[in-house]
């Protein structure tokens, strides 16, 4: 998942005809231009609520702007330091509106969400104050949708026309950029028209093959999690002391649930997925060994991934890494006998029954 920073999203907005205030991207104090009038300095961070933490300041001169930037640079936003700043014209806002295009999984279509109560997290707005309307990708934004939406937001006919164009641009971003979210919050209603004051654009990794110009930047603080992400490994970090490696997302989830149900604390899980490559097992164990676990539980139901392949990977990894954690292995399915034999030959005990294996894991974690 690629999250665009505010300024990256706003550059996209400009390209798609969505009006934004004039702004400069500031990477260093010397980038700040001389200016007259009121402007706003905004920290560019991949996390919400920056305003409340002092990441947004009104400034009236170049000096004030530089001072603000220096001060904001000291703030940590959920662990992130600002990479850059937006310096933009301050706008007299009459109302803050909300509008976004995202996927509605229930109707399996893109949906427009809008509200006259913008500027806050849309999840905190009561349902009845949110306008929802599906868009069929084969038809796109219709005139009647624009009319309904403008009427819901109580806009004058002139602003209704502007909103229509904004909605078309936002839907085009969603569609052409394969976005999972294209959001303007707030969309400022001002005397001189509508203006996008902030942007939130998210693109799924799956679609990046169509967007070679986008360099994925992942805002992940945990180094192990980031390494896994960068290598395209399916690793999920949790809190706890029991590491889990399984093949398949569903089996992984079921495994952590079983551990938790029996009183254990899952630390993370690593999904071997559906390829039969022993190196992947070694990679998984290497990553696991970077995290302090008490117990590592390898739970395999062999299909595409064969039990013997996993066994070989485990044996190889243990030789290389000599990890400190205790290991519980459970193998079932394709080539389970061969897998168990390989493990046994290398002094690793394995179990067949999932419930029993989980009990063993809990026992070892409690030692």
């Amino acid at each position, binding site marked *: 998942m690629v999250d665009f920073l505010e300024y990256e999203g706003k550059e996209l907005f400009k390209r798609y005809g969505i009006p934004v205030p004039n702004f400069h991207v500031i990477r260093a104090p010397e980038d700040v231009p001389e200016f007259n009038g009121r402007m706003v300095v905004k920290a560019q961070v991949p996390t919400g609520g920056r305003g409340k933490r002092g990441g947004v300041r009104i400034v009236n001169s170049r000096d004030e702007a530089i001072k603000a930037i220096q001060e904001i640079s000291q703030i940590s936003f959920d662990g992130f330091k600002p990479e850059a700043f937006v310096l933009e014209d301050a706008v007299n806002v009459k109302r803050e509106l909300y509008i976004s295009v995202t*996927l509605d999984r229930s109707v399996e279509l893109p949906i427009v969400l809008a509200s006259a109560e913008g500027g806050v997290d849309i999840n905190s707005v009561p349902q009845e104050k949110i306008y929802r309307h599906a868009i069929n*990708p084969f038809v796109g934004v219709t005139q009647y949708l624009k009319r309904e939406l403008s009427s819901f937001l109580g806009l004058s006919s002139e602003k209704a026309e502007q909103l229509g164009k904004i909605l078309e641009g936002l839907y085009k971003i969603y569609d052409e950029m394969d976005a999972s979210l294209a959001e303007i919050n707030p969309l400022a209603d001002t005397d001189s028209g509508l203006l996008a004051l902030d942007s939130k654009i998210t693109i799924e990794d799956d679609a990046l093959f169509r967007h070679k110009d986008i360099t994925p930047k992942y805002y992940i603080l945990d180094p192990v999690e980031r390494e896994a992400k960068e290598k395209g490994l399916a690793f999920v970090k949790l809190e706890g002391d029991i590491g889990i490696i399984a093949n398949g997302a*569903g089996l992984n989830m*079921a495994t952590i*649930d079983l551990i938790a149900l029996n009183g254990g604390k899952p630390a993370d*899980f690593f999904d071997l997925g*559906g390829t039969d490559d022993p190196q992947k097992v070694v990679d998984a164990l290497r990553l696991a060994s970077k995290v302090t676990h008490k117990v590592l539980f390898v739970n395999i*139901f062999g299909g*595409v991934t064969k039990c013997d392949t996993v066994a070989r990977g485990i044996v190889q990894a243990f030789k290389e890494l000599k990890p400190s954690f205790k290991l519980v292995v459970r193998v079932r399915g394709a080539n389970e006998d061969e897998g168990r034999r390989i493990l046994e030959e290398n002094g690793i005990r394995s179990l067949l029954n999932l419930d029993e294996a989980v009990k063993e894991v809990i026992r070892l974690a409690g030692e």
Partner: protein
Amino acid sequence: MAIILKENVPTIVQGITGHQGSFHAEQMKIFGTNIVGGVTPGKGGTTVKGVPVFNSVSEAIRNTGARASVVFVPAPFAFDSVVEAIDSGLELVTVITEHIPFHDMVKLKLYAKIRGARIIGPNCPGITSVGIAKHGIMPNSIFREGSVGVVSRSGTLTYEIVNTITEAGLGETTVIGIGGDQVVGTNMQEAVSMFEDDERTKAIVVVGEIGGTAEEETAELIKRKVTKPVVAFIAGRSAPPGKRMGHAGAIITGGKGTAQSKVEAFKSAGVAVASSPSEIPKLLKERLKL
């Protein structure tokens, strides 16, 4: 009978020359599936494990009378391959490929509706009608002919659960893995509805997980019209919000898609919710009074 895969229709494998395609073409044949050909553009005229390869789906249909396909082509080409399959007149297209952009799936699903085709998947293990045929990648060894219909958003967890059902002395009619993505060709509600209408199916197992509202909608459907006993299992009960749990669709966002909400929805619909895979056969036997 069974659902969807009710007869052993002549079937092609799209992307048969790839590692996965060729391996599973053979596995499907071993299961007894009527695999009549494969498609890889530019490789027409060759054979893979005794299966003739064609350059296009329409060429394969002309030569083999195929009516269904199983798709293994990589994600960037999957949209086009599925459109080709649908345009060429195939009725059933099972997409194993993972990482297809959901934007593509939204469009494919609408397109399949126009053409009257059915898509299963993507990012799924496929469908197996025990005693009839297998389209996809489920292990051949886990099934036993019986009366339990299984629908699941998962892959290996499905195998685990089906294996448990089989080992408990029960058996399956059709097992369908609908896939772990946000938008899937055939969804949980449709599968449950078809199991309800299938004469041979006596009980239904629903394997759900966090994310989305498919389970809640299925619970509504069960309340409204399902008379057969249903046992559910929800994966991800201990998953924290905002984390994508491996499957593209397995994520709790904006407070929606929690395991709790799904478990409650099922319970209020009279569905027995298992807390572990091994509990499923016990609940099934209770409900089937075995």
